[in-house]
Every structure is written in C-alpha cells, then in structure tokens.
C-alpha cells in the first residue's frame, strides 16, 4: 500500500523543455485554419494593390498624380517605376489595420482561447507553469508578428517583380541606391514593422488573461486598436498621442531616407518596448494569480 510513498516525484526539468513547449505552441498556432486564413488575407493585399496600380498605369500615366493625401509616404506613385516600392506600399497599407488586427486576433486568443476550450487547465496541471506558458504564448505571438509582416513583404516583393520593372531605386531624399541595398532596406523595414506590432501583441495578451472567452478577447483587442487609431487622429489629444502605440508606426518610411532619420524610429521602438513591459507585467500579474475555473 505504501509503495507510492517511496516514489515521490522530484524530477529535474530538462533545460530544453521550454523549447519543446514553444515548438508545440508554434505548430498548433500555425496549423490553425484561422491563422492560415489571416496570413492568406495579408498575402492578398499586395496582389490587390499591385494589380490596381498596374491597371491604373497601363496607359502610361503615373499613379495618383501627386495627390498623395496627408499621411504616409507617397510610395505608391513609385511602384510603376520600381516593383520594390510595392513592398513599402503594402506594408504602409497593412500596418494601420490589417497587420495589427491579425496580431490582435492571435494575441487575444492566446490565453482566453485555451481557457474557453478548457485546454488551459490541462496545460497547467501538466504542469506547464503559468509564467512559462505566458512567455511561450508571447514568444509565439511575436513570431506571428514577424511571420505576418514577412508574408506581406514577400508577397509584395514577388508581385512587384512580376508586374513592374525592378532595378535601382530613388530614396525619399532623392538619392539613388542599388537594388541589392534596396532589398536590404526592405528587409530592415519589414523587421521594424514587425517590431511595431510588439505593443499590440502585449496588449492583446493582457486582454486575453482577463476573460475566459477567446472571441471577447479578440474583439476587445481589435476594438482597442481601432479606438487608439481614431484618437490618434484627433488634434485636441496631441499631448497624449505620443503615447499611443500606433503613433510612430509609419516612421518606418524614415529608413528610406538618406541618411536614415532615426529619431521617430527609435521613439517607436522605445514605445513598443514600454508597452511590452507594462502590459507584459500586467498580463503576468493577472495570469499568475488567476483562479482557473474554466
């Protein structure tokens, strides 16, 4: 009867174990139809933009005719000259909404989705460990940010190369750089865009720890995203606007200046780090003390 007594479970966790959980997490995230659908939509955006520009400029005229209204760099008018500009245009088109929305869906679902499916309790009694599970989830969301951005960038690169001429390109400052360096800048821009989503990812993860419903967490995160985007347009709030996670998003265009204008880029990255720290800590504080009743 007392045989169990002599076999108390004191096991030393393998140091590689965290990566095992991360790998499992990555594989179930990227095997979901929902994730693939989101990536599919993101891949379609550059195709739409590219085809639209191609049709618009098929008579030889240039696109948009310099009416580049208000925000964002006027990359779009350059596409017909150089397909590489489709990468910048597509990232500028998806960064305000499509990309963060996709990230909001994945981040919002991270904990709340497991809770509503009931799988969270089994992961915790496995025991995955609350802190490690949260870190794994965050790492996976960050990986999704990168994957989503690269999907847009690569799709734009391919579509741009197929529909338009490629070659040397002209920076915003008017200097000429080689195609190879242009590609390098495009990759750098993709990384910066992915890093711009880190704040939303942390916010989504925090929201995800607040509720037991995956749908509610996704909707709340996307709702917050839209709200912040609107508030960022209201001039009376300009004292607050530098603290909105989306405020410096389009600063990635500064990487296309010669020399690169770093001020807003570093502000953006600093702000994202701040959001990650604040909402990451809040998510941890909430999740590590939460009663799991779902």
């Amino acid at each position, binding site marked *: *009867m007392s045989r169990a007594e002599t*076999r*108390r479970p004191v096991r030393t966790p393998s140091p590689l174990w965290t990566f095992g959980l991360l790998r499992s997490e990555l594989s179930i995230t990227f095997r979901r139809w929902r994730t693939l659908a989101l990536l599919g939509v993101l891949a379609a955006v550059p195709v739409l933009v590219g085809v639209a520009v191609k049709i618009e400029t098929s008579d030889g005229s240039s696109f948009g005719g310099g009416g580049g209204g208000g925000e964002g760099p006027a990359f779009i008018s350059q596409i017909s000259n150089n397909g590489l500009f489709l990468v910048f245009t597509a990232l500028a088109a998806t960064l305000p909404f499509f990309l963060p929305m996709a990230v909001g869906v994945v981040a919002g679902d991270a904990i709340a989705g497991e809770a509503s499916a009931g799988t969270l309790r089994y992961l*915790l009694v496995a025991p995955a*460990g609350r802190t490690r599970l949260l870190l794994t989830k965050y790492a996976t969301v960050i990986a999704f940010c990168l994957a989503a951005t690269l999907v847009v960038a690569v799709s734009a690169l391919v579509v741009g190369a197929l529909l338009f001429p490629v070659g040397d390109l002209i920076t915003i400052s008017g200097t000429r750089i080689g195609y190879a360096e242009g590609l390098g800048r495009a990759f750098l821009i993709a990384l910066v865009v992915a890093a711009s989503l880190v704040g939303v990812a942390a916010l989504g993860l925090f929201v995800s720890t607040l509720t037991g419903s995956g749908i509610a967490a996704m909707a709340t995160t996307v709702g917050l995203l839209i709200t912040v985007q609107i508030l960022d347009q209201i001039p009376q709030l300009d004292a607050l606007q530098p603290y909105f996670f989306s405020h410096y998003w389009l600063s990635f265009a500064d990487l296309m200046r010669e020399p690169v204008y770093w001020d807003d880029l570093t502000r953006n990255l600093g702000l994202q780090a701040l959001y990650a720290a604040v909402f990451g800590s809040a998510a941890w504080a909430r999740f590590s003390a939460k009663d*799991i009743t779902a």
Partner: protein
Amino acid sequence: MAEPAATKRERPERTEPPGRSEHRERGSVEDAVIATRGLTKRYRGGQLAVDGLDLTVPAGSVFGFLGPNGSGKTTTIRMLMGLIEPTSGTARVLGRPMPREARAVLPGVGALIEGPALYGFLSGRDNLLRYDAADPGADPRTRRERVAEALDRVGLSAAAGKKAKAYSLGMKQRLGLAAALLQPRHLLVLDEPTNGLDPQGMREIRTLVRELASDGTTVFLSSHLLDEIEQVCTHAAVMAQGRLITQGPVADLSAGARGRLVVTTPDVADAARVLKEQGAGDVVVAEDRVTAEPPDRDLADVNTALVTAGVRVRGFAVERASLEDAFVALTGEGFDVAG
C-alpha cells in the same frame, strides 16, 4: 516504436525514462497522498463553495469522492491541482504543499478534471503530444512511444489519427484519460471519469482503475454515481453543500447504515407481529414483504419463531446496506442537486 515491444507490459515504475531521480521523502506526512486542513474556498461574490475541508486520502487507496452536483467536489479538485487559490486552509498533495510546490507535485499526478478538453483541430495523437510537451518531466525522446502506449491503454489506437472534433463524447473521455496516463503517476485524479461512456466503456474504466491501483497508484475518483464508487473504491468521502460529511473505508461507511431483515411471506400480518415480539424494530409491511431492523439475536431463532407461529416463509434474508443507504442516513436527504 523502434523500442522492443517487451517494455510495454512492464510496471510503470520501470518504464520511467532514465535520468529521473527518485527521492525518498524524509519524514513524510502520515501515509496520505492528499491531506487538507480547513481547506476553504469562498468565491468573489461571497459564495462559499468549500467549507473547512479536512480530507485525508491514504496512499494506495481507490478513493471515492462523492456528492451531488454543486457540492464543491470540483472546486476541491481544482484547489488540489493548484488551479484555484484556497481562501484559507492548507492542502498537501504527495506530501508537498499545494499550490506552492505545484511544479514538483503535478508531474506525478494525472488528472481528468470536469471532463476532457481537447484541441478539435488536432488528431487524438497530436492532442496527447501537445499535453506531453507541456510536462517538464516528460522526456521528448520517449514521447511518441508513451503516447502510443496511452492510446492503446484506453482503446483509442485505431482512432488516433482522427481529428478530435470528430470524436464521440465517450472517445473524448477516453482521450482525456489517456492524457492522464502519459506518465507513470503516483496519483490519478479522475473527476467523473465515466461520464458519457456506454456500459461497456464504464466497465473498461473500472477495470483500468483497478489495474492502476494494483500497480500502487492512488486513484482519487469523484462521482455522483454511488454504485460506481461502491464497485471500485476502497475508501470514500461524502460532500454536501461544501462540507465533508464523512470519510473512511467504504466497508465502514456502509456498515454505518445497518442492513435490513427482509421476510417474504403471504402472511404479512402474522409475520410483522412475530418480528416485533422477537425484538425487531421499525417493522414495515408491504404487499408480500415485511422488512425490519434485525434484532440483536441469532436470526436462525427468529426464523424458527416465524415458522412455529405458522407463518409461511418464502424468503428470509438480510439485505446489505448500500452506500446509498449510508448516504441517505448521513445526510437525511436524497441525492439531489444542492441549490
């Protein structure tokens, strides 16, 4: 799968992956696998779900945790598993405090809590691989092998490749059970394990529980089905409205409620009279049966008295008290949902 098939039938303790240290707990607390003292949970909003629970589950027992729906069984289990923080009181599982030492305790515990929860878009096998990847004590090198073994043990090998959302309730239940059996465990916590299973499935689960118990695993089984507990459990505890009403060996619990003497006869009036004369209490007459609390004397003499009084006896027996009788005797109420 490249491993020799011979490892399959070995005792769990010998299939443990190499490199796992086994420590003998020094000065271990009693002989209890689960021990709670004054364990209490009050949910926000003031609802008292569990009230001062002192539960002791002896090592090696098959412990039945009984109570109507809403009596606090699941809240107790969640506290034991570190999912819910107790409002007050302490809980020790495998000799260590929970939830503080959850990381050390939980790898030795397999659990099925409030039904299975699965990733519908993954196959049964992939679900188990996922849960196993979450366990720090699980050796990735033996993962596939252990998953296959667990699937085999619950009879799901043939359906292992099917998506879990296509599983029937009974299959999901089996898969949940397989997840609890991925590792050799010291303690299995099974919350309503036969829910959704057909009679054949229930029988298989009971056999499995007995098998595990004979390997030295302590099984903590919650149920609202009394006969299920009675069939497999060595010990039981009864909860009602958040309180522990009783606990102990099943035999003692049933013995608490005494059996009844049942006399089957066409001459019920005479029989009742004789039984009263013989000192039987609480005589109840119904159609062709007279039941009574057996008197404190040799029942053979009681039978002789009946026959000499001219009562034609068709049947004369003592019906053993069931756990249900014990429960009713303890709570003075039926087995209904607590409000």
